[in-house]
């Protein structure tokens, strides 16, 4: 049962990751790429975390997994904001 | 005491040298008494040792710097000969120099290096091994350089640079020779001739060449003499010291040491080194005289004369026969006395009459009789007029040449005598015969300058007149040769 959940959840996670990457590669401009990416990879990481969560041996490990996700979300949100703003002020590579 | 005496003799000039550096410029009394005191002390020690050596005491002191690098101070008869000369002339030159410089600047520096120079010469004389000889040889270079440069004007600095440019490669060559030799024979002590059988004749000849080049720079053997005439830019006391006692004599002394205490007369002959060196010495004798003829400046003429005269010593050593060697050794002393007299006089002419060039000497004999008489004595001695000092040397050299089977040397001696006369007699002619110029001036109210000059001039007569006495330089040279080397 737990293994099954892991298979499923990690698979979904992978889909999000791959989709996010595809968006990162395919989308035409910086902001749409940003958009695709933040959404996709945070969800992807979430599903991976949940999937692996079913494999944990101790509660503490699960807690750590959730902490990781929370931290990643916090970072991703902040970074997306900041980089997007920065992108407005600077142009292309010099 | 037997170990301490050589060290004491060394210290008698080394300590004053070091202390003098720290005496302020206006500390005349302290500086003068220190230097004179050192000189007197050294003379006293030398006299003491003279008597003790005659009793057969051996003086030896050594201390190791590193394995194989041992400073050995040892008094033998040859060392004593040289040391007596340098001790006596140091004393006289100090008196002369104090009078000469009066209140000129940088006196502490001058007298410091002056004493250091004498200390090096003393150490050189006392050295009992090749490596200690080298160390003092090099110290001598270093301590004379500031003396040559002392005036710090353009010619002096140029002369000092030339001096180093000759002396440093020279001593480097000497060092190579020493190390090459010692790498096969072990440390060379002058008391026991090294065993040269380890080395093949080609190497031995090569090493000998290096030795002669090394010491020959200081002995001003042609073509290594270039520094000496330009070094006359130095103050008169320095020139006196350089030409009579310290540098050129160190070189000549080195030649004697190498030939008699390292190679030995027999090896010289068997390796075929004797005649080539005698040939070079002869060339130097003639070349120096010819060049002296062409000089219009008194000191320059004297300088070339030194080039020529010092090679008498080399010639005597190179011929390697006992009589020639006596001639060479005695010339070591005699030339010193004569040449210092001449340079003292040249200094007095310059200081008291402002005369630097030969044409300024006209008629000075009447105005400056003492100096002129001394100068004449020195010049006649150089020419070899009996019974003055130079005659004795030339006489023995000639006999030695015959003994060594090299009669051609007589021709060299004759030619050299003629040339000597040719470049000295015109000076005497000017001094005594030609009338003085209208604006000529000059006086001798400088006892500090004149008295030492008179003493050395008197000595040139004395050593000639008393040549037969056992304590004369000639007697001493005889003793050295018969004791140490001769048949």
């Amino acid at each position: 049962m737990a293994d099954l959940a892991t298979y499923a959840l990690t698979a979904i996670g992978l889909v999000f990751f791959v989709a996010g990457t595809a968006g990162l590669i395919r989308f035409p401009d910086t902001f749409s790429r940003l958009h695709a990416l933040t959404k996709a990879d945070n969800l992807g990481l979430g599903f991976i975390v949940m999937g692996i969560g079913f494999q944990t041996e101790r509660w503490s490990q699960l807690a750590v997994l959730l902490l990781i996700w929370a931290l990643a979300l916090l970072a991703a949100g902040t970074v997306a904001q900041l980089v997007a703003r920065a992108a407005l002020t600077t142009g292309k590579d010099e | 005491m037997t170990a301490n005496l050589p060290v004491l003799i060394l210290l008698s000039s080394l300590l004053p040298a070091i202390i003098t550096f720290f005496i302020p410029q206006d500390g005349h009394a302290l500086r003068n008494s220190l230097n004179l005191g050192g000189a007197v002390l050294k003379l006293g020690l030398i006299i003491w040792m003279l008597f003790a050596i005659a009793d057969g005491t051996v003086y030896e002191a050594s201390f190791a710097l590193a394995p194989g690098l041992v400073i050995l101070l040892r008094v033998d008869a040859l060392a004593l000969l040289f040391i007596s000369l340098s001790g006596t002339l140091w004393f006289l030159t100090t008196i002369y120099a104090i009078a000469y410089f009066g209140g000129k600047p940088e006196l502490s520096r001058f007298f410091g290096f002056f004493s250091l120079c004498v200390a090096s010469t003393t150490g050189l004389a006392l050295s009992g091994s090749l490596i200690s000889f080298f160390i003092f040889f090099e110290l001598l270079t270093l301590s004379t350089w500031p003396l040559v440069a002392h005036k710090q004007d353009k010619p002096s600095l140029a002369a000092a640079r030339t001096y180093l440019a000759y002396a440093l490669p020279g001593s480097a060559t000497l060092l190579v020779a020493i190390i090459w030799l010692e790498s096969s024979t072990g440390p060379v002590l002058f008391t026991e001739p090294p065993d040269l059988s380890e080395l093949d004749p080609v190497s031995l000849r090569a090493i000998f060449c290096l030795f002669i080049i090394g010491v020959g720079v200081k002995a001003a053997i042609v073509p290594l003499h270039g520094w000496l005439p330009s070094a006359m830019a130095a103050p008169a006391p320095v020139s006196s010291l350089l030409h009579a006692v310290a540098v050129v004599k160190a070189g000549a002394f080195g030649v004697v040491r190498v030939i008699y205490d390292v190679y030995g007369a027999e090896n010289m002959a068997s390796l075929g080194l004797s005649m080539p060196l005698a040939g070079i010495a002869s060339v130097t004798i003639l070349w120096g005289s010819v060049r002296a003829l062409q000089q219009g400046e008194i000191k320059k003429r004297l300088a070339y004369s030194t080039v020529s005269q010092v090679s008498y010593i080399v010639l005597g050593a190179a011929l390697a026969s006992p009589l020639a060697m006596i001639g060479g050794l005695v010339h070591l002393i005699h030339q010193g006395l004569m040449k210092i007299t001449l340079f003292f006089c040249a200094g007095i002419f310059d200081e008291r009459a402002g005369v630097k060039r030969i044409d300024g000497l006209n008629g000075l004999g009447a105005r400056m009789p003492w100096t002129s008489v001394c100068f004449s004595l020195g010049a006649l001695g150089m020419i070899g007029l009996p019974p003055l000092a130079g005659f004795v040397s030339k006489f023995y050299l000639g006999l030695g040449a015959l003994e060594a089977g090299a009669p051609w040397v007589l021709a060299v001696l004759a030619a050299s005598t003629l040339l000597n006369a040719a470049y000295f007699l015109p000076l005497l002619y000017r001094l005594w015969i030609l009338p003085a110029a209208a604006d000529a001036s000059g006086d001798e109210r400088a006892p500090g300058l004149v008295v030492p000059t008179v003493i050395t001039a008197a000595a040139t007569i004395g050593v000639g007149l008393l040549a037969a006495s056992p304590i004369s330089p000639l007697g001493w040279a005889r003793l050295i040769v018969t004791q140490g080397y001769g048949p």
Partner: protein
Amino acid sequence: MTVWLHLVALVLLGSLGGALWRVWRGPSQADRMMAAQLTGTGGVAVLIVLAALQDWSLLIVAVALALLAAVAAVGFAKSQSPDGAGDPEEIKPAGDWSDLNASEAGDG
């Protein structure tokens, strides 16, 4: 399960590679920075998978990565501000450059 997790990790690495392609291409600095950020998240994911595969203590590495994931981007944002020390939010997005100095002077 082990094989699957290996596969997951492989795919995640592949996706990382895609993100790296964007880092290479750019074209804007923000693009590169953002793509690097994605590799960070992907790396955290890989580490989580590896933790299940190898050793649960690897989670602590993932925590460290997740915790510090934003530092580089914050540094980037700072370096993009005119004085290298500001905050992109201090500048009005549509604002023109002339009032930049004024806004900074107020904060300085």
